[in-house]
């Protein structure tokens, strides 16, 4: 559906995007993950045609995004820029009416489109409220409604939950997930839970470069280290000697526990070696009190990928 090839963008001497490639399939929710200033917003602005890239290309439905195809392809996209910029002088209806008109919705269909978008985004009770008087949550909903007004195939959402309270975040995430059943969505975020909650696939960008790509589950596997934390009764040296015999062990860390004669050991392996660890401890006649497999969180993965 969307193919981004070797995208490059400079802001003066600063390289905001450096040969970024990725694809989004139809009906997929792709998260662009990265720290602030990583280049996510720039990538989105290029895909929506707001900015031009210095090199590389964007294809939507197999058609190259360029000057002559710009307006036609833009009509396939609904875009929610960062912080949902709106005209404070207009009311909700006027805002949606304007967006419906510029997207080419015929006058006779406009009212229906406005009501549908408002209903979908839970804006019916605020339909004639001034934009300047809306809460942050309602402004975000209006931003989404104006992106949805022309029923686009593609939605591009730049940090859609920024500034919302926890309830609003959950609500917007549910809403995006439900939209993802019908539409292709690219969203940017630097919130790991958001990726796990919503995205089918993740592209990690750092300092303008693509540093990781995959499903939220597989992303950790690209450079993964399993950590098994064990609590045992015994001598640290003996324990370490026996554990080192296990294959795939990367490193071992141990520290004394609060209990006398008990130590806590973290075994870092390149694969899940829990059963081998248990067998090795049994052979060494070391008393195992507790074993925990620590799954890498998205935070760990994010940190690892973006601190390289």
């Amino acid at each position: 559906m969307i193919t981004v090839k070797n995208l490059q963008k400079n802001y003066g001497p600063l390289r905001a995007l450096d040969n970024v490639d990725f694809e989004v399939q139809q009906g997929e929710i792709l998260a662009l993950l990265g720290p602030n200033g990583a280049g996510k917003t720039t990538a989105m602005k290029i895909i929506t045609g707001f900015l031009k890239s210095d090199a590389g290309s964007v294809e939507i439905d197999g058609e190259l995004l360029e000057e002559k195809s710009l307006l036609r392809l833009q009509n396939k996209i609904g875009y929610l820029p960062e912080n949902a910029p709106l005209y404070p002088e207009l009311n909700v209806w006027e805002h949606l009416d304007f967006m419906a008109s510029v997207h080419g919705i015929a006058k006779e269909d406009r009212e229906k489109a406005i009501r549908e978008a408002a209903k979908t985004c839970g804006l019916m009770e605020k339909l004639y409220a001034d934009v300047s008087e809306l809460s942050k949550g309602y402004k975000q909903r209006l931003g989404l409604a104006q992106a949805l007004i022309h029923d686009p195939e593609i939605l591009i959402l730049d940090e859609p939950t920024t500034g919302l309270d926890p309830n609003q975040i959950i609500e917007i995430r549910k809403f995006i997930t439900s939209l993802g059943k019908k539409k292709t969505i690219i969203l940017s975020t630097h919130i790991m839970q958001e990726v796990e909650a919503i995205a089918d696939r993740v592209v990690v960008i750092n300092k303008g470069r693509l540093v990781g790509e995959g499903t939220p589950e597989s992303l950790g596997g690209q450079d993964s280290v399993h950590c098994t934390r064990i609590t045992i009764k015994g001598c640290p040296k003996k324990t370490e000697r026996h554990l080192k015999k296990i294959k795939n062990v990367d490193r071992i860390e141990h520290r004394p526990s609060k209990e006398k004669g008990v130590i806590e050991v973290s075994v870092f392996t390149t694969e899940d070696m829990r059963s081998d660890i248990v067998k090795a401890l049994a052979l060494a006649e070391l008393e195992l009190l507790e074993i925990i497999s620590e799954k890498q969180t998205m935070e760990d993965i994010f940190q690892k990928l973006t601190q390289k």
Partner: protein
Amino acid sequence: MIQINKDKFQALVRKELRLYFNSPIAYIFLVVFLLLSSWLFFRTFFLIGQTEMRGFFGILPWIFLFLIPSLTMRLWSEEYRQGTVETLLTSSVSVEEAVLGKAAGSFIFLALALLLTFPVAISLSFVGNLDWGVVLTAYFGALLLGMAYISLGLFISSLTRNQIVAFIVSVLVLFAFLILGDGIVTAFLPNWLGSLCKTLSLGTHYNSILRGVIDTRDFIFYLSFIVLFLLLNVQTLKTRR
């Protein structure tokens, strides 16, 4: 060839007018404009004792000098500051349509302001023998002059995110274009440069129209001035991409 979609263009104009009239800007502008122009005109009108509106139209370039930049200063700078330009230029609206929509919105607003001064002309026609040909030509000249101010103010607004900067720079540049052909400026210049300044001056062509005759040269000058700054505006927005 620039293609303008009629429905989108109308939507853009409607939005601009709503932005004016849904905020106090429009009403403050209209009140200040009507008060200032009427007061400045009538304070000398009774002294002169002639039924003509030359004095009224003579002061318009100076009133416009401050009022029109106050209308145009926010047109692009505010779109950039608030980020709404992203929504606007990704909603399948061409840059040309967006620029023309804003220019037309401001022009309609200015035309409305001038229309509201029409009772001045009507009341004068009751007092004496008003030459309607001269008055209507002067209104046409004021519209051309106003549109020239708008196109330049709009262009300058596209260069900065700061409304105040846009206002001050617009006033300064418009002031330069207004006085360029004045005797006090051209007197110190070589002949060829003096006549070039007169040709490029907004004031010279306006004064020429106020005489009651629309010279093609004046009309073409204003048209070229307006088109030039609208095109520069389009180019600036495209370059900012």
